């Protein structure tokens, strides 16, 4: 790559900088609303790009995407409602830290981690694109199957007390994931003749129902007058050098995991965030406080989901294949301008491509600067009394569900899911296991069936490819370790009781 010959001054025009700032502000605001994510924010801005020049329009959308991934953590931390699958794990430690100690600190951990993760992802795009693309083409269907299976295994390792109930939730999640059109035969599965269920249960309706509605029900149940934070000093989005250093390791884990997982279409920011959360927990010195407000549990997934943005951009620029749904819409913005992302574009429009890559680096910096000011305002949400906060969040959630697919059906579905999930939470079932299984289920099913079609029905394909063997070994080691720990714990317990 000859990115060293790029004239950086192309980037610093008023229209490009304005695009970065507008995209960042917009993305952060939309991302902070439960149920509204990056794809929606980008779609809303897409019509604007028709009249803008190509570089500014792509930068606008990339800045939106980047900021939206960070914004998703805001509602997760401040009100405990993750708006995207990626923010799911952020909510555990983020909400706990915000409630117990300081919402400002919790948001600051997220912002710093998102910034470094995003920066890392951008550097990966600049320096490692060629290598990663070759790697991505060596990984295919059988490996997807094993990775997703590994993810399911991680589910059982993810902060659950009751393994049996967690497994029941995971199986229910897998079952729910089968609803919709079978993508191999076109047959309808469990749709009850509802055309709204053809594409399956909407992920936004599910997330809002399971997390936003249940959280609101729980809030109503508790002391309505309770306020968590009274001191305004706890609202500042700032970290000391020491605090920052303490989360460098999870940020590193998240950045690497995020940018690697991000390059695979179909995986995306969600699994990237969960994998890095699990890894950060395994390698942490303070494992026991995970889920109870450990800053490491915020830093790892937040670094990962922003690093995944860069990861998803790699296959688009190198192969013309969008690495995530949001990038797919951004690739539409390329085509509107008669540009087709891919290796040819590097040759025909090098200034544009390098402008995008270096501009992408800038999106993270703009996000950090704006984030520092805007986030402090969001942190104030925790000081809003519940009788005001609850109806506002409720209204925003409903709007979020509706605009995601424009289906009234989804509103009723979300309400139903909310009520059922509320009962499940009261019975100590893990709704997180449900969601993780729901997202991973289709990957497992489709990659399994597609592998067999590719191999002509021969099962050898699952254990004869080098990367598959590596993944099988990792899976076996994890199962072994888990079994070992369990027996060790059991013998300890029995020796104590005797």
């Amino acid at each position, binding site marked *: 790559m000859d990115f060293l010959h790029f004239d950086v001054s192309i980037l610093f025009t008023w229209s490009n900088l304005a695009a970065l700032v507008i995209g960042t502000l917009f993305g952060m605001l939309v991302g902070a609303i439960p149920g509204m994510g990056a794809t*929606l924010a980008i779609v809303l801005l897409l019509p604007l790009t028709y009249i803008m020049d190509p570089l500014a329009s792509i930068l606008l959308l990339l800045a939106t995407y980047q900021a939206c991934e960070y914004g998703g953590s805001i509602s997760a931390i401040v009100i405990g409602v993750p708006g995207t699958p990626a923010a799911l794990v952020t909510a555990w430690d983020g909400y706990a830290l915000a409630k117990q100690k300081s919402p400002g600190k919790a948001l600051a951990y997220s912002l710093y981690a998102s910034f470094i993760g995003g920066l890392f992802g951008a550097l990966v795009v600049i320096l490692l694109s060629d290598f990663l693309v070759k790697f991505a083409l060596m990984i295919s269907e059988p490996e997807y199957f094993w990775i997703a299976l590994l993810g399911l295994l991680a589910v059982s390792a993810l902060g659950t007390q009751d393994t049996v109930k967690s497994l029941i939730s995971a199986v229910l999640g897998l079952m729910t994931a089968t609803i919709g059109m079978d993508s191999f035969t076109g047959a309808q599965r469990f749709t009850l003749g509802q055309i709204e269920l053809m594409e399956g249960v909407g992920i936004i309706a599910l997330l809002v129902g399971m997390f936003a509605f249940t959280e609101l029900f729980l809030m109503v149940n508790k002391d309505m007058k309770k306020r968590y934070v009274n001191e305004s000093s706890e609202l500042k989005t700032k970290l000391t050098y020491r605090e920052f250093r303490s989360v460098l390791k999870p940020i590193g884990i998240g950045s690497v995991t995020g940018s690697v997982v991000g390059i695979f279409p179909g995986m995306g920011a969600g699994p990237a965030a969960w994998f890095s959360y699990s890894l950060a927990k395994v390698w942490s010195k303070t494992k026991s406080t995970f889920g109870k407000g450990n800053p490491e549990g915020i830093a790892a997934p937040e670094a990962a989901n922003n690093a995944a943005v860069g990861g998803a951009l790699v296959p688009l620029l190198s192969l*013309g294949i969008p690495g995530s749904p949001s990038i797919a819409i951004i690739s539409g913005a390329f085509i509107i301008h008669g540009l087709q992302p891919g290796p040819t574009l590097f040759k025909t429009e090098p200034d544009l491509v390098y402008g995008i890559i270096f501009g992408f680096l800038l999106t993270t910096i703009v996000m950090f600067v704006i984030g520092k000011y805007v986030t402090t305002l969001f942190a104030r949400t925790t000081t809003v009394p519940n009788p005001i906060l609850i109806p506002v969040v409720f209204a925003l959630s409903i709007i979020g569900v509706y605009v995601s697919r424009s289906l009234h059906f989804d509103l009723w579905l979300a309400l139903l899911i909310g009520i059922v999930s509320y009962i499940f939470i009261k019975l100590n079932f893990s709704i997180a296991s449900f969601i993780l299984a729901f997202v991973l289920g289709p990957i497992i099913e489709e990659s399994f069936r597609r592998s067999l079609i590719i191999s002509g029905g021969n099962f050898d394909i699952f254990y004869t490819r080098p990367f598959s063997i590596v993944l099988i070994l990792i899976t076996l080691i994890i199962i072994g370790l888990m079994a070992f720990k369990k027996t060790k714990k059991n013998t300890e317990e029995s020796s104590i009781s005797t």
Partner: protein
Amino acid sequence: MKRKFLFLLVTFLLLVLAACSSNNSSTEATSASESKGKSSNYPEKNITLIAPYEPGGGTDRNARILAEAISKNLPNNVKMIVENRPGGSSTVGLTYLHNSKPDGYTLSVAMETGLAIKTHTDDLAYEWDSFTEIATLVSGPQLFVVKKDAPWDTAEEWLEDVKKNPGKFRAGIAGVGSIGHLALEEVKYKAGLDMITVPYDGTGPTVQGLLAGDVDGTIVASSQVDLELMKVLFNIASERTEDIDAPTLNELGLEVASDSWIGLIAPPGLPEHEKSFLQDAFKNALEDPEVIEKITAGGSQPFYNGPEEFKKIIEERYKINEQVMRSNGMIK
């Protein structure tokens, strides 16, 4: 600080309102139509154009280009607003249209998949001939591509090789019942080929599968062809495309010509006045040089036909697809 927060809240709500305005328009359209205005004043309010696919894709892009151009020339200061209602390979959006009022304020773009393929395989509220056809708008090529380092350089070589080795070639498709899938099945049927079909979820993953070597070939639109990575063997459409040098199957002696077209339809029973108004509006837009430039930049070309021809095209495709799908057991 309190005031700052209030300000934030207000911006929030404004944003949300902005986010919903595009979706509200359709409900407004149906409610306002209760008071039946005289059709001679049509259009009196904004017209909703449904794009039954995800935003950012080819159908959505072309719909937006045309809606923007038409909005400029509509009387009474009204606009045409694109609304995405994706799902079920466009059947969710088309079902919504089918249930809408035929007052000319709710229209949809549609492709062969929703009208002449899914009507065979799915249990839908509408049939291929249920709607009011207005016009065809754009069409695009369907290009059969293989990897850059694949052993075939021409369509003849490929055809010969696949015939010699039945059941070996793996073709990726972007979805069961997609236009590309049916086009491929038609090639198999007419040329007597035996190959494996591997379904993917969308064009992106299919191309990834091609480049990773999981499948040997697939069908893409011209905006997805990168000649650094792949070779184009032939074009399944009826005519050659300007930007990419590939023969059509007709030139090769096969009777297969499947264009990837986009047409404009309205709910059943649209009055004649509205129909001809819309037909003219779209016809004029398709002759606008700026529109032509935008459409061709995205790899499609203007393809105008009036209502009768449009209906004939749907009927013809419906019949061919029936034949092809019966032959391979997709329908009984």
